[in-house]
């Protein structure tokens, strides 16, 4: 009787290293597939910060945060120095054609190059903000391009996507996020 209990106890103590090993393996295995360059989004559920930026196409026109509310929309951060933005641009055109309201923010770029880009590749943006020194970008927590913010009609940021939007992730999850915006 006591021998049985002793044996069971021994078995348990022998299993502990195995269990610890399995836990560590699972932890590290998950870590393998985590993209370390994507940071946790912290700006979710907050209103767009105050800003005053000029229009990209019409330099005299000035925009403030009121342009980023009123209807569900995407705020796409892009630049001509960003190769991923180039590959994303074609799909943004398609989305715009499907009726998705997209505001563009040209980030740390030159106006001339940006205008040439929109001229050649088509312009999916209803409004284009021009942020040459990247200060609104900084205020929004942008740390690269492209990044896309999902903003609801009250001007509250509901979601942030780091990296390009493509048919795979749009149909996978982003479309649902966009359709849930009120």
């Amino acid at each position, binding site marked *: 009787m006591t021998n049985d209990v002793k044996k069971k106890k021994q078995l348990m103590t022998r299993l502990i290293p195995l269990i610890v090993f399995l836990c560590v393996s699972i932890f590290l295995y998950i870590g393998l597939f985590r993209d370390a360059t994507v940071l946790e989004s912290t700006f979710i559920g907050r209103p767009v910060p105050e800003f005053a930026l000029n229009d990209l196409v019409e330099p005299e026109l000035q925009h403030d945060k009121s342009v980023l509310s009123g209807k569900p929309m995407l705020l796409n951060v892009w630049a001509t120095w960003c190769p991923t933005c180039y590959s994303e641009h074609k799909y943004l055109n398609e989305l715009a054609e499907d009726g998705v309201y997209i505001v563009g923010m040209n980030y740390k770029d030159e106006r001339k190059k940006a205008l040439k880009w929109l001229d050649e590749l088509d312009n999916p943006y209803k409004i284009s903000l021009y942020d040459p020194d990247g200060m609104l970008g900084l205020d929004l927590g942008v*740390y690269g391009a492209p990044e896309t913010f999902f903003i609801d009609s009250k001007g509250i940021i509901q979601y942030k996507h780091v990296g390009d939007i493509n048919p795979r992730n749009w149909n996978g999850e982003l479309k649902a996020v966009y359709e849930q915006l009120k």
Partner: protein
Amino acid sequence: MKKIFVLMTLMLSFSVAAVIDVYDFETEEQEALFRTLTAELRCPKCQNNNLADSNASIAKDMRQKTYNMVVDGKEEDEIVTYWIDRFGNFVLYKPPVTLGTAILWVGPGLFILFGGLIIVRNSRRKVSVETDDRDEELSSAEKDRLAKILKDSEK
């Protein structure tokens, strides 16, 4: 000889870590605060650089913004919160205690505690086993056998 010397000096390389930016401060406290902040905040684009060391353009912008806030008289906490709000706890080199990071803070302590307990328990068990053996007297048959073995080995 001279040529070889020149060649060898060319092969030497020096790492230059300092970023050359010039910031003017009104007080020494502000400058000290700026230095601590840029040393303790991490550049979001780089995996392992602080703001002071990084040449990434985002780090430059963040240095500028941090400078502006320092000169505006903002407190250290306010500035740190501003950056956490935007880039998450990633910007901190020292992770705060949260549910997700608890293992980092408590883990080593638990490890030592449990390890210590196991060591103490095992050593106690061994001692008791040893004393058990010592208490046992050899039977007469075993004594005979032992004597025989010893005798054999002497030959």
